[in-house]
């Protein structure tokens, strides 16, 4: 399914670079990346370890700032955002799902979700968000009482509960087995389809690309290739 011509641009990045200085050595994590993300599309970011995927996603999500280049979010120049503007941007627009879940261990599933809905503009009820990921039963459990897949689903519920404009997922299935991985991807897929949330998913698993509208490959800090999928399949149909 190609991107419709009239689709609105959500992100536009031009000539992004990111250099990490560690003493004498500098690591070039991104070396001139141009990328566009459109309204309601689901993209998959592929690439070798160290190719700069997380760095790119972090910059898009306002967790990090590029060393040079420009990023626009709906025609606002993010590279000009102050610290507090970035915070507000994350608070109002972005949902994150991390590879290692990053749940707050001292809070139950429901409270982990509430942590985000309490500061959002137009959130769902935490219970509803957890229902979307099939976790109504485990609402009052602490992270330590849940399996990895369940924790990751809580993390997704937490990310979508605020009804974000964009959902950024860094290896959401990295630590999960096949079946659980699919459940997690289904949840992400649902959000993209039903709420029309622009979604970016980082993965090492190229099978997952089948559910994306577009697949972007990073290679050594640069865009290697961009493919558009003609047909998009649902997470359930994925076949490892």
């Amino acid at each position, binding site marked *: 399914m190609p991107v419709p011509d009239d689709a609105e641009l959500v992100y536009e990045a031009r000539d992004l670079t990111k250099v990490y200085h560690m003493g004498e050595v500098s690591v070039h994590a991104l070396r001139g990346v141009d990328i566009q993300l459109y309204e309601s599309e689901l993209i998959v970011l592929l690439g070798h370890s160290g190719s700069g995927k*997380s*760095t790119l996603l*972090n910059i898009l*999500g306002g*967790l*990090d*700032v590029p060393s040079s280049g420009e990023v626009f979010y709906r025609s606002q120049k993010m590279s000009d955002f102050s*610290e*507090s503007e970035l*915070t*507000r*941007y*994350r*608070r*109002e627009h*972005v949902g*994150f799902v*991390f590879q*290692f879940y*990053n*749940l*707050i*261990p*001292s*809070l139950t599933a429901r*409270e*982990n979700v*509430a*942590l*985000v809905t*309490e*500061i*959002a503009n137009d959130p769902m009820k935490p219970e509803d968000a957890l229902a979307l990921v099939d976790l109504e039963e485990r609402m009052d459990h602490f992270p330590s009482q849940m399996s990895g897949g369940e924790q990751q689903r809580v993390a997704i519920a*937490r990310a979508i509960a605020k009804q974000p404009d964009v959902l950024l997922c860094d290896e959401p299935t990295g630590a999960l087995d096949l079946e659980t991985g699919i459940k997690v991807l289904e949840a992400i897929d649902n959000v993209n389809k039903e709420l029309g949330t622009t979604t970016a998913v980082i993965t090492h698993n190229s099978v997952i690309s089948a559910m994306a509208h577009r697949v972007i490959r990073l290679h050594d800090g640069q865009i290697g290739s961009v493919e558009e999928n003609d047909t998009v399949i649902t997470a359930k149909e994925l076949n490892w």
Partner: protein
Amino acid sequence: MRALNRKLFRDLFHMRGQAIAIAAVIACGIAVFIGAQSTLWSLKSARETYYERYRFSEVFSTLKRAPNAITDRIADIPGVAKVQDRIIKGVTLDVPGLLEPAVGKLISYPDRGEPVLNDIHLLMGRLPDPLRTGEVLAEEAFVSENGFQPGDKIEGVMNGRLQTLTIVGVGMSPEYVTTIQPGGMWPDDKRFGIFWMPRRQMEAAFEMEGAFNDIALSLLPGANEKEVIRRLDRILAPYGSLGAFARDLHISDRFVSDELKQLQIMSLIPPSIFLSVAAFLLNVALRRLLTLQREQIAALKAFGYSNREIGFHYAGLIGLIIAGGSIMGCILGSYMGRSMTSMYDEFYRFPTTLFRVDIRIMLVGVGLSFLSGMIGVFAAVRSAIRIPPAEAMRPEPPPNYEPSLIERLGWHKILSQVPRMILRELTRRPAKAAMTTLGIAFACAILIVGNFGKDAVMYMIDFQYGLQERQDATVTFYEAVPSRALSSLKHVEGVGTVEPFRSVPVRLRYGQFSRQTAIQGLGEQRDLFRLLDSEALEVPLPSEGLVLSAALAKILHIHTGDTVTIEVLEGERPTRKSSVVGLVDDFAGTAAYMDLRALNHLMREPPVVSGARITIESGRDDAVFRELKETPVVAGVTLQRVAVEGFMESFAENLLRMRMFNVTFACVIAVGVVYNSARVALSERGRELATLRVIGFTRGEVSSILLGELAFLTCCAIPVGFAIGYGLCLFISTALETELYRIPLVVNPSTFSFAAIVISLAALFSGLMVRRGVDHLDMVAVLKSRE
């Protein structure tokens, strides 16, 4: 409740052990601050209202005898508000049940109306009737010490005549908040009492009609006190004035002021120690928590929580700990203050001691602890929330271990694996190890400072009454008598050695500095009273010249070899000069000494003496005292040593209470520091220790890695604590130095060993509490989880 607040309370609950330990340290700091400060303010305000309501005078002067008409001239001195002339005389009393004669001070009370100044607070009975002979109002301390009731009678020798005094009432006066006999160092309420007698009765008994021998003034606001004193001295000089002085030299007020000064220091030093230690502990605990929650912070930021919100979150956690400590501290502090005030109530007599914890003091105490706590954690919180969220998502790089210095020197070969690990851990973070050591050291120092007061006072008493003054009693005569009179004293059955002395009231002047004191002339034979310096070495008394107490020399800014002007304040009141031939570095008072013959010569008088120190054969006290009571020239017999023993007895109980407080405080600090360090170490190194358990180390070996470090630090801390404690004692003894006392810097070995033992036990106890955690290390869980 908001989810973030829920996290706060759960985190707090999770670290409750540490939180309680730290809160306890804060509580102690606030408690001492509130206790001491509110006692201070209660005493201050009690004193102030007392002085004001009963019109305590501001300038005092004693003279021989002046006609009443002179008071008009005194009232005309610019700056003088009110004038109260009085007759004050001594009386020797025969108190039933007391072998030795007691000394009374009779003060005239106006026949009509109240005294203009220095009014009396009537506690019991009534005022004496001016028309009835022998009726007196007695001061409360003497009455209660001796168990008198209104209506009781005492025999006394007044002006050489035996008279019966009837106590018709009991009262107290702002002039005698404490009663100290002239020349004494300690209150001796059993043997020294104050009495008020109607003026006309005093006039009759002492042949003082139309005259007075003591005057008290109050001043107008803004009056020039020095100038008033100068003019007063000029008016009264022809009448045998001993020199006027202001309130700051009034002995009762002095005693109270010195005590308040001591309280002020006490309210500041220990609390600053407690609050600094608490700030350090909060810092360590929070740093660990922030490291553990690095990724949680990053996640919160990723969701859009601002730096400020996250900062407040952690500040809130710390705030709760401090608030807990503050509440405990306020409760404990009120209790402490109450018990301290009641202790002072026994020593100082105020009509009302309204103990009240001022809310402002509480607020200041709580404010200070919040301030110090927040300063302690500010940098840690700021740097933690400043990490960019993307950065925080990456686990912290593993700590950097280096071969320690000792290893580089090659000494490690003699160490086995466990001490080697301890050594590396210590050298990896020397600042933290040093702060931990310092924290424990302060606990040790608190114990030393706590015992210092007792050590010093005991030393002073031993010094004064064991080494310096060895007489059984000091006999003073009404006036100087020819030395021949001593032979009658020697012939009293039971009297052993007799050492005479001559005491001349003088004002010493050197340049612009002057001080009223007395020169003591001492005989050649000085076994009962030896001139000793603070090292207990005998100071020679040359046949010419003055030996001054070092404190007096300091007041006069005079040095050995200088010549001092002596204005004699009795008899013809001549002015003489003498050179200062030596200084004696003593502990109390502002004394001046001279050879007895040289003093007689200086005074151009025949050999006369003012009194004598005597020893009494054991078992003969009864007979000796009975005879002395009936000897007309004897104005009084003082038994300072007995007085001090009595004083110390009532003091011992309070000392014990203070010591209990101190031990508690020190233990709270020691346990707080050791327990916290051990908990943090356990959390930091849980994985490492669990791994060791997995590969076959025993529980004992694993705990010895963790606790060995703390045992080592505790051992280092004790000598450091000795040094800090000694330093604090030095500071306190300097800060509390007054004219009445110089506090000797003596810390007994037993104080050091007591401190060492308490600290070791406290450390052991907290180590054992954490060892339980080591024993329950969950090997599986620790290895599975990602750090």
